[in-house]
C-alpha cells in the first residue's frame, strides 16, 4: 500500500538527512524503524505526510504519488494518514473531546469546526474510541490535566478519528515509563490489527521494538542498513545500525522476550489502564 523509492531529503543547512531510502509496506503490515539519533527516522516518517518536503524520490500511497499533490489534494491525502507523536502534541488547553474531534478537521468545514458543531457520527465515533482506549468519562477534561499515558491514549484516539489507512508513529513511548510504554505499544498494535491499519513506528527502544514489531528496518545516516524480521536482529545487525558496541546483554534480553512473545503479542490484563 505504501511504497517509498529512492527518497532523498537535504535540509537547507546542507545536511543530507535521507540518502535514497527504499521501503514498501503491505496493507495491515506494521514495521519498526530503529536507528541512532540523527539517522533520519523522524525525517522519514514526516516525509510521508509531507510535514517535511522531500528533496527527491517517490512516495506512493495506494498508487497515488503523494509528492506531486497540490495543497488541497495533500490535505485530502493526509486524512488517511494518522500520526502519533512523542510528546503527544495534544492541544493542551482544549478538552479531550475537542482533541479527538480535531482528528476530523480534514473532513468538516471551517465554520462547523469553529463552533465545535461536528456531525453526530463523529461524536459517536469519538465516544467509542474513548471507551476503546480506556478513557471513558474523560471527554470534558482538559488535555493538560491528564497523565502522560492518558495523553498518549488521547493522541492515539485522535489519529484513529481520521479513519486512516496508515499510521505514522513517532517515538510513542519516549516520554513514558516502562510499564506505560508497554501498555501503549500493545494498544497501538492491537488497534492496528483490529482495523487492518498499516503502521510505521519510530522507536528508540530496541528491546521493545523487537518484542512488539514483527518487521524491523534499521536506519543509519539516512540509509536503510537492515530490513528484516525482528527475530533476526542480532549483535551483528545492531552493530551495523548503531556501530560497534558490546551488544550481548541486550540480545540476551531480546531473546528472553521473544520466547515469551512466541504466541503472538504478549498479553497482559491491564491493557486499558494507564
Amino acid at each position, binding site marked *: 500500500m505504501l511504497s517509498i523509492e529512492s527518497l532523498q531529503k537535504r535540509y537547507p543547512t546542507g545536511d543530507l538527512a535521507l540518502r535514497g531510502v527504499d521501503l514498501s509496506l503491505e496493507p495491515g503490515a506494521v514495521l519498526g524503524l530503529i536507528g541512532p539519533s540523527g539517522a533520519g527516522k523522524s525525517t522519514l516518517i514526516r516525509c510521508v505526510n509531507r510535514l517535511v518536503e522531500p528533496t527527491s524520490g517517490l512516495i506512493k500511497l495506494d498508487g497515488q504519488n503523494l509528492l506531486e499533490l497540490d495543497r488541497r489534494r495533500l490535505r485530502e491525502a493526509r486524512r488517511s494518514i494518522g500520526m502519533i*507523536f512523542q510528546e503527544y*502534541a*495534544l492541544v493542551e488547553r482544549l478538552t479531550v473531546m475537542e482533541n479527538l474531534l480535531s*482528528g476530523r478537521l480534514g473532513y468538516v468545514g471551517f465554520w462547523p469546526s469553529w463552533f465545535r458543531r461536528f456531525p453526530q457520527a463523529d461524536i459517536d465515533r469519538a465516544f467509542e474510541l474513548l471507551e476503546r482506549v480506556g478513557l471513558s468519562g474523560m471527554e470534558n477534561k482538559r488535555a493538560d490535566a491528564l497523565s502522560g499515558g492518558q495523553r498518549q491514549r488521547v493522541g492515539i484516539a485522535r489519529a484513529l478519528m481520521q479513519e486512516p489507512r496508515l499510521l505514522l508513529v513517532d517515538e510513542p513511548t519516549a516520554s513514558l515509563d516502562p510499564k506505560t510504554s508497554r501498555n501503549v505499544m500493545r494498544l497501538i498494535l492491537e488497534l492496528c490489527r483490529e482495523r487492518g491499519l498499516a503502521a510505521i513506528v519510530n522507536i528508540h527502544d530496541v528491546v521493545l521494538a523487537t518484542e512488539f514489531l514483527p518487521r524491523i528496518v534499521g536506519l543509519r545516516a539516512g540509509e536503510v542498513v537492515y530490513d528484516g524480521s525482528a527475530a533476526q536482529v542480532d549483535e551483528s545487525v545492531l552493530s551495523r545500525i548503531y556501530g560497534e558496541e558490546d551488544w550481548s546483554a541486550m540480545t540476551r534480553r531480546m531473546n528472553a522476550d521473544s520466547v515469551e512473545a512466541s504466541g503472538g503479542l504478549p498479553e497482559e490484563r491491564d491493557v486499558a489502564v494507564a
Partner: protein
Amino acid sequence: MISPTLERSGGQTRLWIRPPFIQSARLRWSLWAGALIYLVLAIGSLEVNWARLSLGLERGLAFVVAFLRPDFVSRWDEILIGFQESLTMTLTSTAVGVALSIPVAVGAARNLAPTPIYLACRGFIAVSRTLNEIIVAIFLVAMFGFGPFAGFLTLTFATIGFMAKLLAEDIEEIEAAQLEALRATGAGPMQVLDYAVLSQVLPRLAGLSLYRLDINFRESAVIGIVGAGGIGSTLNTAMDRYEFDSAAAVIIVIIAIVLCAEYLSGWVRRKVQ
C-alpha cells in the same frame, strides 16, 4: 584575631577589590571629570527667569490648593460629556484595534507567515509603534477635524501596533508540535489557526486586550489635549480658564477610573488563565 593561614603566609593579607569596568585608571577618571564639567556647563547655560519661576510657583500652589477642594459641581455636565466621549473612544478603539491586530499578528509571526507578508506586517507594526499617540492625534485631527472620531482612529492605530507586536511574539513561542499535529490531520490553514494557535494564545490575547483598554483610557485623556475629544479636552478647557478646581475634579475622576480599570483587568486576567 589573625587567622593561622595569614600567619603562615608571612602575615601578608591578600586584598581583593572588584576589577573596575574600565581598566585604564586615566580613562576612568577623565570620564568622570568630563561628566562633571558637562554638568556644570549645562547648568550654567540655563537662563532662569526668576520672576517667571515665582509666578509659576504661585500658580502651582494655587493648583495644589485647588486639589484640596476639587469642584465637581460647576462643570459637572462638561465632565460627564467628556467621560462619555472618552469611554466610547476607549471601548470602540480597543474592540476594533484588537480585531484588526489579530490578522496583523499572524502575519508578523515568523513561524506562520511567508517572508513578504512577515516584512509588511512588521513594517506596519514598526510605524505604528514609532509614532507617538499625540503625533498621530495631531495628524488625524488635522485630517478629520476636532472631536472624538480623530481620537478613536488614533487609539485604534496605536492599539493595532501594540497588540500585534506582543501577540506575534507570543505566537512565535507556541509549541510547534501542536501545529504539526493539526497539519497532519489534514486540517485547513484557518482550522490550524483556530485549534493550534488561538487556543494557545487566548489567555494572553485576553490579558493584553484588557491591559490595552487601560492604556487607551489613559491615552484618551492625553490626546484630548490636542483636540481629539474626550475628557482631555474638558481638562484642557478647564486649565485654559484657570479653573484649577474643576481641573482637579477631572484628574481625580481619571485616577479613579484608571484604578478601577486596572483592578478589574487584573481580576479578569486571573480568571482566564
